[in-house]
């Protein structure tokens, strides 16, 4: 499970600021709780917890996220020893805190443990927790696994006899929501206490309602007692170690690491200071008609270009009249566009003649001008250092669409062509193969980007594997539908330098509120072809609509061809050819509270029709934590293990860990099972994400950095 540590290391090790709330302790399932038993507590909002527990022959790796102040979610990957082999199991939990604790009343939560999947850990509970002085006491009732010790007839049986019995096994190929089983069958009571002895040490004791029936029957340990005991040691505010004794026969350990995207212990990034505003009274006075003289424009360009470049900002164009200046820029340094816009505006005030009364900045992202941010020069002078300067500046600013801007007339000569490249180490991982749960590869990567003119980007990536821990015999996909994704391991294993992608993209604005992209080439590791995208997104709207269509052909495992080998459980066969047309209508919505939703409707790679829903919780500093699920017309049986495609997505900004400004982020996708149903093309730089960065909702959210 080292991968998780590596992936999360950057984030989790940074930790978060100590909060006044009592320290939450985690149970062996990685949820706030006692030892094996849950509690009614929630972690602090937005807390991310990665925990590893090992006892007997059970290893559990859990990633837990406090989705909202009341809702906790977890994804778990467990290895459970069996007589001849190891069972690798994925499970999901949810907990909702129904009631907050008051002086008289405990907090109350309801939870589902392992509610999707094969149900090895499946159980439901209602728990109540109360602070009694420093001690947190918890009591609850459990069903399923949590009703397996000292169980009694289900009290819900009074409502309906359907609650009396619980089906065993799981439905079909697993991965389905087993709601027909929830809160069914015998119930049992559990209880426990957590006593913080001091800041570092917490002692815990519980009466467990989990009889560990399966583990005991496999001889992992003898079940002698329902009493479990634990000692928690808080090494740092972000690192907890727990040793526990289970059932009078087993010792376990648990380590948990926490991080919170809302609180960076290192504080804000250390940003270079901006140039101060030059008041117009001190600005140079130019004769009327100065903006018509070509040399005055080129002199301004010559002054602005290097000064902005120093600040990580590229001057793409400048258009001038005697009273209005419009600067088109691309910000390569600051995560927050308002910060870059603020820097540009201040620099402009230093060089523009006094006759210019209106300054506009057009932030461009990868060749697309998303908006025009316009302010009166007076406002810049007035609000530079006033107490509510940022809010006052926002009130004086108008943001409009930038489609009408004539980039050709305004262009800064010498910006194009651009060529950049980089060569460096690269790590990649594929997870959850039962033969090799964490397949890691270390290699070298060469990337290059050529921008011959505005909007045209030719990019490519070449990768060479150097060391890996791949098994000698790969797992041959048993998928009964076309292997559009499930042969990915053969792509990972390709020998020699691999052309990961090589694409020519053209992005442009067909009209107001409209954005467009054409791509051709090796679009991603497994597919090559043509792709086109159109996005409608008004500059001040929280809502966007997109359409994307791609004609693609599946690539060979290595090389430049389009003839991947046929894979069956018997081994590799003859080369085959596969092409398809895939595409989606997409709807995007940015909610007030940082929640972002994306719905895709369309045709997937295996020619299956269906829809995907993606929900992200996004933080203003660039952190994103989300989940997605896809349902298509491929039946659960044909899909195979897991029944449908689903996963967890995290994006971590580099600026968070290095403490300096950067626009680079690192994405992690945790997909429990990579199969062929509901598979999408992996296109980079889709329009919505490029465009919304410069649109009103996002600008407003980050406006606090305008004067930074």
């Amino acid at each position, binding site marked *: 499970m080292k991968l998780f540590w590596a992936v999360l290391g950057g984030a989790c090790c940074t930790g978060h600021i100590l909060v006044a709330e009592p320290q939450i302790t985690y149970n062996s399932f990685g949820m706030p709780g006692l030892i094996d038993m849950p509690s009614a507590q929630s972690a602090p909002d937005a807390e991310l917890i990665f925990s590893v527990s090992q006892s007997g022959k059970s290893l559990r790796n859990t990633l837990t996220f406090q989705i909202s102040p009341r809702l906790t979610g977890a994804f778990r990957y467990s290895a459970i020893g069996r007589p001849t082999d190891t069972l690798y199991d994925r499970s999901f939990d949810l907990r909702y805190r129904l009631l907050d604790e008051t002086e008289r009343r405990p907090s109350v939560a309801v939870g589902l443990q392992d509610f999707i999947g094969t149900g090895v850990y499946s159980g439901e509970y209602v728990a109540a927790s109360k602070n009694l002085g420093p001690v947190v006491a918890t009591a609850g009732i459990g069903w399923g696994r949590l009703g397996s010790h000292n169980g009694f007839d289900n009290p819900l049986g009074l409502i309906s006899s359907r609650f009396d019995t619980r089906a065993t096994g799981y439905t079909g190929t697993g991965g389905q929501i087993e709601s027909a089983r929830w809160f069914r069958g015998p119930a049992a009571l559990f209880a426990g206490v957590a006593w913080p002895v001091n800041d570092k040490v917490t002692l815990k004791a519980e009466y467990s309602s989990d009889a560990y029936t399966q583990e005991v029957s496999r001889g992992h340990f003898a079940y002698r007692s329902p009493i479990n005991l634990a000692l928690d040691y808080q090494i740092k505010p972000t690192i907890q170690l727990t040793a526990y004794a289970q059932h009078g026969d087993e010792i376990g350990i648990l380590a948990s690491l926490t991080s919170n995207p809302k609180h960076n212990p290192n*504080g804000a990034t250390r940003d270079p*200071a901006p140039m101060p505003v030059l008041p117009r009274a001190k600005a140079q006075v130019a004769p009327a008609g100065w903006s018509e003289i070509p040399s005055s424009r080129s002199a301004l360009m010559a002054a602005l270009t290097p000064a902005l470049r*120093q600040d990580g900002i590229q001057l793409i164009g400048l258009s001038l009249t005697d009273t209005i200046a419009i600067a088109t820029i691309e910000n390569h340094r600051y995560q927050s566009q308002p910060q870059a816009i603020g820097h540009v505006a201040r620099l402009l005030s230093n060089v523009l003649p006094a006759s210019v009364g209106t300054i506009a900045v057009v932030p461009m992202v990868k060749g697309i001008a998303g908006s025009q941010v316009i302010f009166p020069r007076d406002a810049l002078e007035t609000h530079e250092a006033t*107490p509510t300067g940022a809010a006052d500046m926002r009130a004086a600013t108008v943001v409009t669409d930038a489609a009408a801007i004539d980039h050709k007339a305004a262009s800064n000569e010498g910006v194009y062509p651009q060529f950049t490249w980089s060569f*460096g180490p690269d790590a990649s991982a594929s997870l959850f193969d039962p033969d090799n749960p964490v397949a890691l590869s270390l290699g070298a990567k060469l990337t290059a980007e050529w921008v011959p003119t505005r909007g045209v980007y030719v990019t490519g990536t070449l990768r060479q594997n150097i060391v890996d821990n791949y098994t000698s015999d790969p797992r041959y996909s048993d998928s009964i539908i076309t292997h559009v994704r499930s042969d990915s391991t053969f792509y990972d294993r390709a020998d020699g330098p691999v052309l990961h992608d090589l694409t020519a993209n053209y992005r442009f604005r067909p009209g107001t509120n409209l954005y467009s992209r054409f791509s051709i080439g090796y679009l991603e590791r497994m597919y090559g072809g043509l792709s086109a995208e159109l996005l409608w997104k008004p500059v001040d709207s929280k809502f966007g609509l997109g359409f994307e269509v791609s004609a693609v052909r599946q690539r060979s495992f290595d090389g430049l061809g389009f003839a991947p080998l046929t894979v069956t459980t018997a081994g590799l066969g003859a080369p085959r050819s596969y092409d398809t047309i895939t595409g989606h209508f997409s709807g995007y919505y940015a909610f007030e509270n940082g929640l972002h939703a994306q719905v895709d409707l369309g045709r997937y790679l295996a020619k299956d029709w269906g829809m995907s829903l993606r929900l992200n919780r996004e933080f*203003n*500093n660039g952190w994103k934590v989300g989940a997605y699920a896809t349902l298509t017309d491929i039946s659960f049986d044909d899909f195979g293990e897991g029944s449908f495609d689903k996963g967890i997505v995290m994006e971590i900004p580099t600026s968070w860990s290095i403490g300096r400004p950067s626009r680079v982020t690192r994405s992690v996708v945790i997909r429990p099972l990579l199969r062929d149903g509901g598979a999408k093309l992996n296109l980079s730089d889709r329009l919505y994400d490029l465009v919304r960065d410069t649109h009103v909702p996002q600008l407003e959210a980050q406006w606090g950095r305008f004067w*930074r």
Partner: protein
Amino acid sequence: MHRFIALGLMALLAGCGSPSVDGTRPLSRQILDQSLALLKPKAAQAAPKPEVFTRASVTKDTTGPVILVSAPKLKAKASLNMIQENGPTRTYVSDDGIVLLLQHGLLAGSRGFGDDLMSSEHSAAHRVILKGSGRYERVLRHINSQNHLEAQALNCSLTDHGAETVTILGHKHGVLRRVETCDLAGRQIENIFWVAEETIWKSQQWVSDQIGSLTIAQVQ
């Protein structure tokens, strides 16, 4: 193949690329440099020689206003030259790019530290500092981990501690020492002003948790 591997290993050690558009080194290189810096024994870094500030040395490049600033919590000291004046706001900058915004000698903002003071509402404070004693409210704004401005209202009181002489790089000023105590979310912060007429010659002003207080002296 072997040559490629050798190249790959070189990349692991170095990481390279064209200068990126923002004029900095490639990120892989930056991260590598940072990691290498962490591995180096701390003692190997010779402590920089403490810079000696004299009136001649800090005013040699300018006839405009200059301040001498020390940050005890950061163990740093620097002279800052005024580079811009916009209404009541004077912008001072240090050689290493730290910027302070002062309004009538009161800190209106800092930039370049990280945990910066983004803005300050201190008009009432200014009146009372010139007058001698009183109670008033101040508002400070900082940026939090989520890029939101957080306003903190402080209840302050100011008392006069009598006449003193302060010496700033050889120049003596007869001043009154006035001490401001503010309640900031349950704890106290103390700012000190050495005032003569309308001029704050010297002050100790709080910036933020991580930066602590700055001592600011008006050299010229």
